[in-house]
């Protein structure tokens, strides 16, 4: 774990470096699309009057100056399946964004939904050294959290302190400077398959871009699609992506659970393609144009040309009705949502004070999804779009861009993570002088 700790620290350093330079790229490698935004920091002019963009916390000081989106290739379930193809897609997106921004970027923050993220809740307790809680105490208590066995080849992607306890008081957001004796901490740890991360990093390295940060797509979706009170009171953001559906639960502005279901819009498309025996691209088009989840009487009469390119007249002029299409799509969507429901149940979503569910991601644009989701997930369901940030092109404001917009915010104001605090002196030999001082203090 020390390796990743170090690499995360190194990435944070790179991020600071990029911020000082003023330009950083955020990159979302998804199953359906690869999106890239280029952010310019330090442009703190007020948002245009009437643009609807408010001076929200953490989003004022940056502006999107370049955007590029391309069809994703060689990605399955949010993980790289064909490195060369993915590299081409990343190159395309990066180059488009760079051309639009008229600048080159050397650092990129990356988010992805694959890698089978798993959530762990950790807790630690430590006696504080002085009368008041200091940074070192927080580092100590974070260090005292007992890390479970993550499994073979898994690494920590996020490790965020979500709650602090000081003596008998619970629910402290920031205990620094407070008086007390015993400091406790709840930490949310998100583990991810290390190979997936390494593949992504290698892919970016082949594009001459340094990875300045890693983030899980469910976390990013929650940050952009949930409004502030939802994040405070408890809500789940469900990102219906192309290859996987990710969900994250937020309370008190901290992510406390994240998971992914390896089912997504591509599976719906695959069902249509297989059921109607049409090419995949046609299925995608039909799904996008005519897809739905609630059939009405009118849908029986609406004929959809599904076409074909076989040269066979009959095969090329098949038509289906919209209700047939809905009949194919609905079971798969139900399956996805029920799988999400199961994950939410496992996470104990029922016990949250507010059980708002926000559906976002490209798959959330299926008409009738909110009605179906309300039946399966609960009544408090809404369709979410990402928060508006300055300079974002209109084409990139849809729900499919929830993760990358969240990544913009993550780049602008990251939450505290484990590696933002200094390494405890007694644990790591990086500070021999401090250790020597401590030894002197203890022994003399």
């Amino acid at each position, binding site marked *: 774990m020390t390796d990743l700790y170090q690499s995360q620290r190194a990435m944070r350093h790179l991020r600071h470096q990029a911020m000082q330079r003023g330009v950083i790229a955020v990159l979302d490698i998804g199953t359906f699309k690869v999106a890239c935004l280029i952010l310019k920091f330090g442009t703190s002019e007020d948002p245009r009057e009437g643009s609807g963009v408010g001076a929200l916390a953490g989003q004022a000081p940056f502006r999107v100056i370049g955007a590029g989106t*391309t069809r994703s290739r060689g990605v399955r379930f949010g993980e790289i399946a064909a490195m060369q193809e993915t590299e*081409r*897609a990343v*190159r*395309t997106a*990066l*180059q488009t964004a*760079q*051309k639009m921004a*008229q*600048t*080159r970027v050397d650092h990129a923050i990356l988010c992805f939904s694959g890698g089978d993220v798993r959530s762990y809740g950790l807790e630690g307790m430590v006696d504080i050294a002085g009368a008041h809680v200091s940074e070192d105490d927080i580092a100590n208590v974070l260090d005292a959290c007992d890390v479970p066995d993550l499994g073979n080849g898994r690494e920590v992607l996020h490790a965020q302190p979500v709650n602090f306890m000081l003596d008998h008081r619970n629910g402290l957001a920031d205990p620094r400077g407070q008086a007390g004796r015993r400091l406790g901490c709840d930490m949310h740890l998100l583990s991810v398959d290390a190979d997936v991360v390494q593949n992504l990093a290698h892919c970016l390295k*082949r*594009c*001459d871009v340094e990875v300045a940060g890693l983030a899980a797509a469910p976390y990013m979706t929650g940050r952009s699609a949930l409004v502030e009170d939802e994040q405070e009171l408890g809500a789940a953001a469900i990102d219906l992506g192309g290859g996987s559906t990710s969900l994250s639960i937020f309370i008190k502005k901290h992510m406390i659970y994240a998971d992914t279901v390896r089912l997504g819009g591509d599976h719906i498309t695959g069902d249509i393609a297989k059921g109607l025996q049409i090419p995949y691209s046609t299925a995608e088009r039909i799904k996008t144009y005519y897809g739905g989840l609630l059939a009405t009487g009118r849908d029986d009469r609406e004929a959809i040309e599904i*076409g074909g*390119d*076989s*040269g066979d*007249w*009959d095969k*090329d002029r098949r038509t289906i009705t919209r209700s047939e299409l809905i009949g194919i799509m609905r079971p798969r969507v139900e399956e996805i949502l029920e799988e999400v429901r199961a994950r939410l149940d496992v996470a104990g979503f029922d016990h949250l004070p507010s059980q708002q569910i926000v559906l976002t991601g490209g798959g959330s644009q299926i008409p009738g999804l909110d009605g179906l989701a309300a039946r399966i997930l609960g009544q408090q369901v809404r369709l979410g779009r990402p928060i508006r940030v300055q300079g974002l092109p209109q084409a990139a404001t849809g729900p499919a861009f929830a993760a990358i917009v969240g990544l913009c915010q993550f780049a602008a104001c990251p939450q505290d993570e484990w590696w933002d605090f200094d390494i405890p002196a007694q644990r790591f030999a990086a500070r021999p002088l401090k250790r020597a001082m401590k030894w002197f203090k203890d022994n003399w």
Partner: protein
Amino acid sequence: MSTLIRDWPQDRPVPSQPPLTRCAPVRHGTAGRDAQARYQWPDPIDVCAPVSAAAGVDARPASAGPAHPLPQSWPPMPSVDFGAPLSPQRDEPAADRGFDAFAAIPSAQFTPTDLAPPAPQHRARRASPPVGERLAPVAGQGPQGGRTLVGSVTMPQDWSDLPDIPVEHQPRADYSPSRLMYRLNRLWLTPVVRQFVRVGLPVLLIVVLVGGYLSDAGRRASLLGMVTSVQLAVENRPEFRVESVSVLSRSPEVAQGVEQLLGIQFPISSFQLDLAALRDTAEALDAVQNASLQVRSGVLQVVIEERVPAMIWRNQTGLDLIDADGHRVARLATRAARADLPLIAGEGAPDAIAEARLLWAAARPLRDRMRGLVRVGQRRWDVVLDRGQRIMLPPNGALGALERVIALNSAQGLLARDVRAVDLRNPSRPTLRLSTEAIDELTRIRRISSRG
């Protein structure tokens, strides 16, 4: 279909050709029948199979193009030539043809008039038909040379009339940038490189090219010669030619003097006229106070503003006219030539001409007796009257002193007496200098009065 089988001549040998791999559409399944039902019966396609096994098939190449689509309308258009003779098949003797599809099947007489395939095109199997596909034209066949099968029916048809089957749309090549292009693009977006390419490189290129061209002395000289010749050609245009000079002045002497002074050889290009220098030259003449030069329609116009002489200055060389500013105007031959002007003398007199003018104006009562003003020691004035009388004025307050003298004169007739000089150089101690005779007379009078 049953009709065909029933009419099949029993004695006809079964053709030895292999069965077609790609026949015109044979409808067996229910789906096919449903499709046909849209067009009701008579359907040429329905009779396809037996024919393809027997008569007309030979003409149809094994790898023929796609089957023709269904007719757009039924019944067929009347432009079909039903009486067109059928030519014998290419590799089958005419005697073998015991069956005429046209006679046998009414529905087979359909000829689609428009042979262009409908919009969603069939897959193009080949770009051009193979050698065996195109039929050799038969003599006497008419313009519709060959014959082919349309919907399994032999038809006179020239294949060259058929439009080319559109090539299937090829999916675009990989649109993602190659690594090289990606890196070049990033390089191009690097500010230093970009600045160098956009500014530094052109400047460098121009400097190198120009420097390389000019490094040879001969080329430099030829370039210079070319520039000079162009310059001369432009300067010598008739539009820029100046033919003469006209000097406008109050007195013709000055005009002539200026014209001589300018000394321009006409004709001359107006580019070679340095008007500022010419003006300086003209103004170098003392009589000229101000000269304005203008080239107007080939004539150099010089307008001279002359100095107006205000006084005459007698100096060591002679008499000079000077204007009100004390500047020399011209030489004067005799005093009588300008008797109206006051005369001043002495070194540095023109520098104090303003005071002299004041004094001259103040001395109006003595005007008929005045000879002139003399500047003494470049600091004070003497008023010289006739009979050798002088009024010696102080350096400061000369005007007041003169007025005192004039007042004395008007009151007591001071200057009418035998006074050589009225000395007011020290204003607190005015002194009269009498002539010798007057002194003697004064002494005699005093002696008489003292004696008496």
